[in-house]
């Protein structure tokens, strides 16, 4: 890769879930956790802060959240302070921006933080907030939010490829099981057998409650540094080797195939190409399972299996520890909840911990060298991908 090599050298998250905490308090809490978890980090070293936050205006009635987050975390950035907003991918956008800044020499030590407060007294207003992620005046009046859109993806996938509800449940069961190894997951210590998942109520047919990630309060932060500083903070840096992104529509009328995510293919090709690896080299992946069907389509569009075989990939356990690669060991969005801005950061933190062998054995990928993180946003109309490599030299 051109430019200075960039490493992710540590991070922290707060417990995800229904939190008795405000947006600012979540930022404050993750700041305190970050300095505990990365003891070598000094506040004055952090020259830049990137704040992934999807809808603080809606959920917390607060704009200009970058300086708010800085104040809560006790940071005084001297180079770059900004919010990144890309709906469900706002967190990864913060990391990509930090990466770009460091690679370009504009920053040496940057924090990427994601904060989202989604539990508010009016859940109907929260649903309105989710609705305006879509093309608000055209798709919104019909009642478009994420569940009915991804339900149509599932319906088409079932129609075109014979994917079954049982295969959807296999994704949810796996990710909830992994979430039981993660005390910060929203559904920690809650078990979901496939039978139980298939009996949960329909939310947007054919999707049931267990097929959908939930609204969640949460925050997570990671530290990114230039290559010459990486060993100051950790013995197990996670090197960013590639990144890619693609967007091809916004209004639902301009979506192409619902079941062939061309944008993900483009973004993954770009990210893997920059890292000079193939998808088969990836040992652990954090992919955007906002819905069970999403993870199934992602298996296919990432090239882990042929088109239409994603359901079987899930049911055959190929994304488990001991399978082809470990997919969503953190517990995924399904098991951890999906605080929009925090999700991408928490996924990257899981990659760091996987590389450092800091996670419980039940979800540890065996000696991972390569990792991939994927976020989609909105109606899968934007795909963002990053590739990390463990250890070694810059």
């Amino acid at each position, binding site marked *: 890769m051109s430019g200075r090599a960039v490493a992710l050298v540590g991070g922290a998250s707060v417990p995800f879930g229904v939190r008795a905490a405000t947006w600012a308090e979540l930022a404050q809490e993750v700041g305190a956790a970050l300095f505990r978890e990365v003891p070598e980090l000094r506040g004055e070293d952090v020259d830049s802060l990137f704040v992934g936050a999807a809808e603080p205006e809606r959920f917390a009635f607060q704009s200009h959240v970058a300086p708010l987050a800085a104040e809560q975390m006790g940071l005084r950035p001297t180079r770059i302070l900004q919010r990144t907003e890309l709906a469900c991918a706002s967190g990864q956008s913060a990391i990509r921006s930090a990466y770009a800044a460091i690679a370009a020499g504009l920053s040496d030590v940057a924090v990427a933080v994601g904060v989202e407060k989604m539990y508010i007294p009016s859940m*109907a207003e929260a*649903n309105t907030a989710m609705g305006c992620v879509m093309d608000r005046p055209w798709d919104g009046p019909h*009642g478009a939010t994420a569940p*009915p859109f991804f*339900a*149509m993806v599932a319906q088409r996938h079932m129609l075109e490829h014979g994917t079954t509800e049982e295969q959807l449940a296999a994704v949810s069961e796996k990710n909830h099981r992994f979430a039981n190894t993660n005390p910060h997951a929203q559904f920690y210590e809650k078990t979901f057998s496939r039978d139980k998942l298939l009996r949960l109520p329909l*939310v*947007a047919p054919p999707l049931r409650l267990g097929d959908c990630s939930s609204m969640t309060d949460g925050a997570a932060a990671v530290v990114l540094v230039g290559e010459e500083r990486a060993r100051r903070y950790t013995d197990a840096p996670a090197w960013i080797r590639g990144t890619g992104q693609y967007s091809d529509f916004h209004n639902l009328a301009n979506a192409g195939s619902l079941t062939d995510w061309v944008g993900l293919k483009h973004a993954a090709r770009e990210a893997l190409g920059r890292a000079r690896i193939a998808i088969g080299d990836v040992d652990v992946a954090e992919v955007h399972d906002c819905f069970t069907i999403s993870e199934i389509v992602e298996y296919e569009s990432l090239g882990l299996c042929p088109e239409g075989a994603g359901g079987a990939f899930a049911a055959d356990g190929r994304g488990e520890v001991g399978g082809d690669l470990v997919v969503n060991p953190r517990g995924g969005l399904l098991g951890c909840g999906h605080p929009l801005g925090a999700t991408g950061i928490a996924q990257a933190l899981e990659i760091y911990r996987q590389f450092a062998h800091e996670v419980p054995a039940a979800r540890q990928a065996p000696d991972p060298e390569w990792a991939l993180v994927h976020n989609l946003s909105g109606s899968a109309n934007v795909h963002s991908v990053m590739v990390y490599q463990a250890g070694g030299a810059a």
Partner: protein
Amino acid sequence: MSAPPRPRRPSAELVPPVAEPPAAPAPAPPAPPRSYEKRPFLLDFFPLESEKDTRIARFFVRLREGRLSTTRCARDDLLLWPPRTACPKCHSEELVWVDLPSTGRLYAFSAVLAGAPLGMEGEVPFSVGLVDLEGVPLRLFGRVEGKPWNALAVGEVVHVEAYEVGDGRVFYRFRAGS
């Protein structure tokens, strides 16, 4: 980085561009949705319709006449949705208005059984779908009325209809089974 929509093929069934809408009898609009009440502007999904608020006010004038329409770029032969003022491909602002077909087929559908936005809670359960409009390369998303969700089928014919939002505005939706 947003690529323009895919090229649209021309269609013989597309009504030719017209400068001004011809006089058409105004059909009686169906009854308003069950629970609509005026919401604060920043909690209201429906678009503003008047000349002072939008450059595509003609869409709503035509919709009030029962005609679903959009804009088209003649230079690129692109049928554009939603209606817009500049072509995303050649950036020409010389777009023309065209009527869209009033029927289509369900490409996919689902229903909202829980988690409705503010003001739509009373409409639950409601169905939504993607509809391939008859004879034109346009797949529109919209509310589907007329049948419960579990009686709908992919491929089913649905009709476009205009309806009064309830505060003087008008919008479109689909109706199955008529």
